[in-house]
């Protein structure tokens, strides 16, 4: 099954509540998939700074002294904010590559979950409620975000196998379904130089969209290409720095409900996920059509 949610705010006054609203939506979807959970949130874009969300199986040892070690490796002015098994490292954007290389050498067990000027990603094995509490997602503010609660089918139940997947700067994807041509696509994408971390099918979808957008397509155009090139069952919710998109495969057996008001666009695997949103009683509520791309941009 899997449960997916997404919330794209139009009304800035709701931004302080984004973490709380998304958390409630995701917890409601717990019984669609209790293996692991994750969330990606887009906060304020920081000029010339980039955030790396990292994860470690041994955070206490890996995060200790990391800023100092990075400084010695040539990363000046890195700041680090640990949150449980994750930490957000902020560096100036021209130092992203040197930070990546330094992390690989200094902390080989640390994984980069995502990078970007606005996006942070938190995901772990466990129930949504526990995962969200662990990272204090309710306290987070932002413009839009997506979340996922997983019932694993295509790869192991691990932190890296949890959603959202991020394969490009400020890009992330959550998926309900299973792809059947992911091995072939993974080989093609790897040949194009896109780096994949797992054997998971959904990561391939994320990487595919990253590849299409790298060719100059916008999110909507990339999602349209996905309908031709991805084979299998999917309902995707995708985030970029300023955009939010939804697409379902032509068979459309993976459920989806959307709601829109003047204040937000919301997505849920089921209507239950949306019932606590402000003004839902008067929202336009609809089921996204099969093989149809929906996207919004700030």
């Amino acid at each position, binding site marked *: 099954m899997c449960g997916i949610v997404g919330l794209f705010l139009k009304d800035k006054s709701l931004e302080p509540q984004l973490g709380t609203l998304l958390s409630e939506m995701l917890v409601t979807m717990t019984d669609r998939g209790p293996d692991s959970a994750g969330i990606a949130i887009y906060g304020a874009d920081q000029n010339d700074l980039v955030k790396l969300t990292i994860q470690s199986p041994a955070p206490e040892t890996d995060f200790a002294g990391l800023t100092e070690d990075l400084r010695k490796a040539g990363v000046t002015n890195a700041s680090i904010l640990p949150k449980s098994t994750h930490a957000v490292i902020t560096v100036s954007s021209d130092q992203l590559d040197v930070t990546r290389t330094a992390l690989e050498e200094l902390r080989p067990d640390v994984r980069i979950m995502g990078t970007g000027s606005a996006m942070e990603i938190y995901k772990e094995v466990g129930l949504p409620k526990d995962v969200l509490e662990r990272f204090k997602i309710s306290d987070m503010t932002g413009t839009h975000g997506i979340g996922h609660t997983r019932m694993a089918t295509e790869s192991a139940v691990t932190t890296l196998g949890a959603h959202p997947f991020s394969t490009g700067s400020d890009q992330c994807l959550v998926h309900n379904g299973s792809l059947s041509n992911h091995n072939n696509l993974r080989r093609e994408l790897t040949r194009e130089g896109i780096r994949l971390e797992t054997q998971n099918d959904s990561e391939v979808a994320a990487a595919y969209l990253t590849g299409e957008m790298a060719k100059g397509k916008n999110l909507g155009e990339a999602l349209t290409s996905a309908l031709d090139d991805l084979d299998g069952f999917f309902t995707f919710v995708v985030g970029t720095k300023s955009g939010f998109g939804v697409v379902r495969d*032509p*068979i*459309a*057996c993976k*459920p989806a*409900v959307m709601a829109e008001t003047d204040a937000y666009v919301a997505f849920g695997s*089921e*209507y*239950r*996920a*949306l*019932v606590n949103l402000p003004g839902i009683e008067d929202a336009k*509520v*609809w*089921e996204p*059509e*099969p093989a149809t791309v929906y996207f919004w941009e700030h």
Partner: protein
Amino acid sequence: MPVFDLATTELRALNQALHALDKSGANEDFEVTNPRGSHAVAVGIDAPVNVTIDGSVGYYCAGMNEQATITVKGNAGPGVAENMMSGKVVIKGDASQYAGATAHGGLLVIEGNASSRCGISMKGVDIVVKGNIGHMSAFMAQSGNLVVLGDAGDALGDSLYEARLFVRGTVKSLGADCEKKEMRAEHIELLTKLLADAGITDVKPEEFTRYGSARTLYNFSVDNFDAY
């Protein structure tokens, strides 16, 4: 009138009360408030009773219904009135995929749109949709009637048996072995009754086109191999 507020009452209490009703006598009307997308609301009733649900429901509302009249004042999730045997289910809003799947009898009225696979494998139910229906509707439908006031999506009536399909708008494409058929007097008469049962008075039966099975896929024939 019993009122069950699902914000404060367990769903099981509602369904148990509905299962305890008199199967052959008169029953008080039930009202259900704050369904908030709950699954399996008013499932498995076998009694003449009116149940009104004030809001949207999740999966499988009114499943296996016998005798009851169930009205949803909102949208319904996947599988509404699945396997209904008799009675009447009215959805004031839209219905998600496989509405009325495998239903044997009764009447399902959807006042908004129904999405994909509406009436899949229907076995005698009458379904009236005021809006549009999605792709693969009436797939392998065996008997009963599907009436659509709007348009139908791709592959309508694929591998159809003896169900009758009446569509007033356009059909995006027909499924394997489904074909357009002539509207005879008996069909006008049937449609007049179905529209009246669904409370529709402003639409004429002559505006519909009938679709049914071409009956070429009933028995295996090697010449039809590509169609299977």
